[in-house]
């Protein structure tokens, strides 16, 4: 049994961590938070040059030809550093849609650009408030033209193309690849709880749309890709949870009150112990998800939902208690605690909310259980 990363993967982690500590200190995250750019272009280019954007993209399409395990390692480090870059949209989602469902021509056109960071892709599913179900998708394509409104779309303000879930001529949900610079596309940048990651509203009015994957199979493909992305997103959340725990621990060692470090009080110590517990459960569940992702296990849907629910819980728990341990200083703009708090709550909603994934997990477990019984 070897539920762990290899020595080479751990070396990759160290390498990325060094790179990010230099290129992505919290000042870089704040530059996006407070500035006009919606992502850090220099950092994104640097990640492309290191080959990490294309880690899981096949070599024939300009990638590094490694596995999704390496991408999990990358995701965890991006999460630790709160990297303000569109990796989840462009790599976990757009590239994965192309790999899973694209034609050779679509792959040849877009994957090398995604790996090189020369183009950004995203996935447009939600059309507003509440959980997205097939019945709630009203965007539609007729005669190769898409009409409808999608929001929020992560990185929709900077993406070159979006994979859009819309109704085809028969009313079935299909996926379409839509270039966002084309005529008939209007985009609006949205304010959000985490401005270090962009959100947009995309308004399509007879925009040119190219089918991606089998017609009518859109919801099925999207579910599969979302499961794969959920494992990677869980690693990002895990990285954030671990870093928030470390910040809180370091502050508890340094901050004095009543003549002693606050970490010596059980009231603080036990909060930190509970943060360690939730981060540890999440790590173990993430490794389970990573195993299912790379081994093509039939239990990927259960493993992905498990990793996702556990990591969402851990990141939210660690980020909110990081503020609590810091006391009043944790609620200042100057301290970084709110950056983690913002990101933890934004990522909890990306790819579908916590209650959505909780439901998916139990639905899938009961289906599996019924199969086992039958």
């Amino acid at each position: 049994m070897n539920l762990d990363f290899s020595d080479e993967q751990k070396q990759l982690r160290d390498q990325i961590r060094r790179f990010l500590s230099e290129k992505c200190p919290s000042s870089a995250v704040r530059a996006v938070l407070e500035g006009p750019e919606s992502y850090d272009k220099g950092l994104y280019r640097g990640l492309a040059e290191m080959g990490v954007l294309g880690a899981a993209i096949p070599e024939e399409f300009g990638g590094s030809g490694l596995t999704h395990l390496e991408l999990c390692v990358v995701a965890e480090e991006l999460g630790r550093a709160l990297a303000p870059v569109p990796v989840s949209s462009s790599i976990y989602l757009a590239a994965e849609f192309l790999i899973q469902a694209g034609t050779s021509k679509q792959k040849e056109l877009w994957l090398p650009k995604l790996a090189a960071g020369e183009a950004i892709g995203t996935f447009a599913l939600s059309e507003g408030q509440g959980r997205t179900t097939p019945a709630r998708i009203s965007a539609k394509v007729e005669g190769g033209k898409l009409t409808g409104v999608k929001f929020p779309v992560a990185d929709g303000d900077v993406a070159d193309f979006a994979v859009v879930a819309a109704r085809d001529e028969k009313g079935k949900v299909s996926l379409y690849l839509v270039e966002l610079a084309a005529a008939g596309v209007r985009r609006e940048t949205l304010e959000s709880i985490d401005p270090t990651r962009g959100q947009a509203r995309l308004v399509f009015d007879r925009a040119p749309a190219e089918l991606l994957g089998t017609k009518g199979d859109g919801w099925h493909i999207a579910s599969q890709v979302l499961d794969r992305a959920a494992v990677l997103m869980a690693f990002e959340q895990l990285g954030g949870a671990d870093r928030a725990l470390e910040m809180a621990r370091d502050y508890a060692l340094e901050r004095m009150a009543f003549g002693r470090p606050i970490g010596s009080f059980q009231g603080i110590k036990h909060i930190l112990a509970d943060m360690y517990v939730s981060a540890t459960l999440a790590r173990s569940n993430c490794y389970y998800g990573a195993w299912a992702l790379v081994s093509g296990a039939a239990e990927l849907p259960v493993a992905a939902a498990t990793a996702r629910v556990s990591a969402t819980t851990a990141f939210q728990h660690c980020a909110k208690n990081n503020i609590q341990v810091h006391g009043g200083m944790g609620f200042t703009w100057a301290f970084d605690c709110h950056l983690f708090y913002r990101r933890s709550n934004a990522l909890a909603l990306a790819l579908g909310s916590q209650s959505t994934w909780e439901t998916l997990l139990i639905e899938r477990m009961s289906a599996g259980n019924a199969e086992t019984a039958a």
Partner: protein
Amino acid sequence: MDFEDTVEEAAFRTQVRAWIDANAPRHLEEELKRASFGSNGVVSEDPIAAGKAWQKKKAEAGWACLHWPKEYGGAARTPIERVIWGQEEGPYAALTGVFTIGHGMCGPTVMSWASEEHKRKLLPPLASGEHVWCQLFSEPASGSDLAGLRTRAVKADDGSGDWIINGQKIWTSGAQYSDWGLLITRTNPDVPKHKGLTMFFLDMKSPGVEVRPIKQANGQSSFNEVYFTDVRIPDNQRLGEVGQGWEVSLTTLMNERLSIGSGMSTGFPELFRFCMEAEIDGRPAVEDSAVRSRLAQIAVKQSGLKYTGMRAISALSKGEIPGPENSIGKLVAGATMQDLSMFALDLQCEAGVVWDEDSPQQGRFQAMLMRSPATRIEGGSDEILRNIIGERVLGLPGDIRVDKDVPFKDIPTSGRKKK
């Protein structure tokens, strides 16, 4: 990332499986699967005798205390082989629960601190299941603060060098059928509490030892009180130096937390099965969104503990020492079991109050409800475990101890101010 055995591990597993298939007491399998809190489930014969018989059979074939050295009755196997054995033993492991404390805690302490002669005399019959050991640590006034214990050991005044023991221990599992006990005592009340302790091992049949079962809050009696009245122990049954008892006890406690925390159940499989069967408004409970959210949160705890264990096994498989992550086991499992038992009763609604054979799963959730408070206390309370994680894993400073440099006899014994 894989769950595969190495070639050597697979070969070992095959060998173990074949032996267990050929030798396990199959007639007890169904009873053992119903093992519950505080019993191994065997009712058709004497459960202690059945446990001893299985342990003896294992010992004769070289499968007892796999990781112990051969000269002490073990098999000198690697930690990963011990894990594989445990996986293959499955339900039969419950049979030898009577030896958990002896093999997991007392044995390692004897191995670290006893003379060579005593090790060769005491350990082989412990390994082979001939002798049962218990741990005489907690007292009515010293649980989490174990070093505050009051059972006195004083030198006999007859020049024999023997020690005379007076006092009381509590929460002693298995004292009523134990042959030997590991006993920590106070030998010097004039020095600070940690410095005046001394450890002994004791023949439980010694005159002056009286075992009384405790009737617990859940109505069962799996723990005991043990009273000592002028019990005589020869000085050569001392472990460590006089005054070194605290250090000796740490060997035991470290082993206690490892063995109790590993592989604990949260009760999730039972709850999930219940939610598949129970109904809310004519639909399976598992289809209710509130039930799903609650179940999912418990599911990821159960799964997190399972894969945390597998990460530890992975480290063992590579010949490495597992990290501190296993310290979360009992903390998570105990609280989760208590929460989920309340949730299961909530789903039963008014009928949840009834606890009999007709209750869902023969009243298992009611039993969990009534047993789980103890899980959160025994072998290190939730609060002590959080201190350990905070201090040993996260490196936080210890709490300020106002009794640290005070002679034991001067430490206050009541929180109330004297009028």
